[in-house]
């Protein structure tokens, strides 16, 4: 089945120790997104790629970086995690553009704990 996969599902890191979260998709979608969701809050868009074109939200901290080496994979790098970065990180994909069926599909999420 076509899907959005995130690894790992749970990640524990130490304060200041770099961490990378992974997302892959079999939908062949053009757009991949990273969201941060803290407890009892709405998902917050960090950035998205339209193909290789990177789009950063204005208020995304520099501590967060992303890479998309090919259509299928996208990575979220947190260079120096702080306690405030503990959250659920959601990856999503969409076909992109203004098409009628441009729906967003979410992966299961990675829950990040910072010690």
């Amino acid at each position, binding site marked *: 089945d076509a899907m959005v996969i995130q690894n790992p599902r749970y990640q524990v890191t130490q304060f200041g120790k770099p961490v990378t979260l992974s997302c892959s998709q079999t939908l062949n979608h053009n*757009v991949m997104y990273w969201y941060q969701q803290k407890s009892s*809050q709405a998902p*917050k*868009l960090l950035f*998205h790629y339209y193909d290789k074109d990177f789009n950063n939200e204005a208020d995304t901290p520099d501590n967060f970086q992303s890479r998309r080496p090919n259509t299928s994979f996208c990575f979220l790098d947190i260079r120096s995690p702080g306690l405030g970065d503990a959250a659920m990180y959601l990856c999503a994909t*969409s076909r992109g553009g203004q098409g009628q069926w441009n729906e*967003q*599909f979410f992966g*299961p999420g990675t829950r990040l704990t910072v010690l």
Partner: protein
Amino acid sequence: ELKVEQNPLFLSMQEGKNYTIYCNYSTTSDRLYWYRQDPGKSLESLFVLLSNGAVKQEGRLMASLDTKARLSTLHITAAVHDLSATYFCAVVTWTGNQFYFGTGTSLTVIP
């Protein structure tokens, strides 16, 4: 700045009752999405509303969109415990690539 607001933020309702969740947004958009999220889980797509006046129904949930009023509603009919979850609406920018989520409505259905 695009704003998407939902109300109420918290909703506790008895089984069998009806209620409506409202989603207001601040920019022009002709597409709106509703999602459900269970605790500790990812988001599950419920409805995609693509035009003014669109109405979609699935089971006890019905969603509608009024693009002129920049308002969407999610109506719950005869609530059951299984509907307890957090519900988010999301609006897409004109490019079609950026999704912005509402504040969420945490629904609890009590016997």
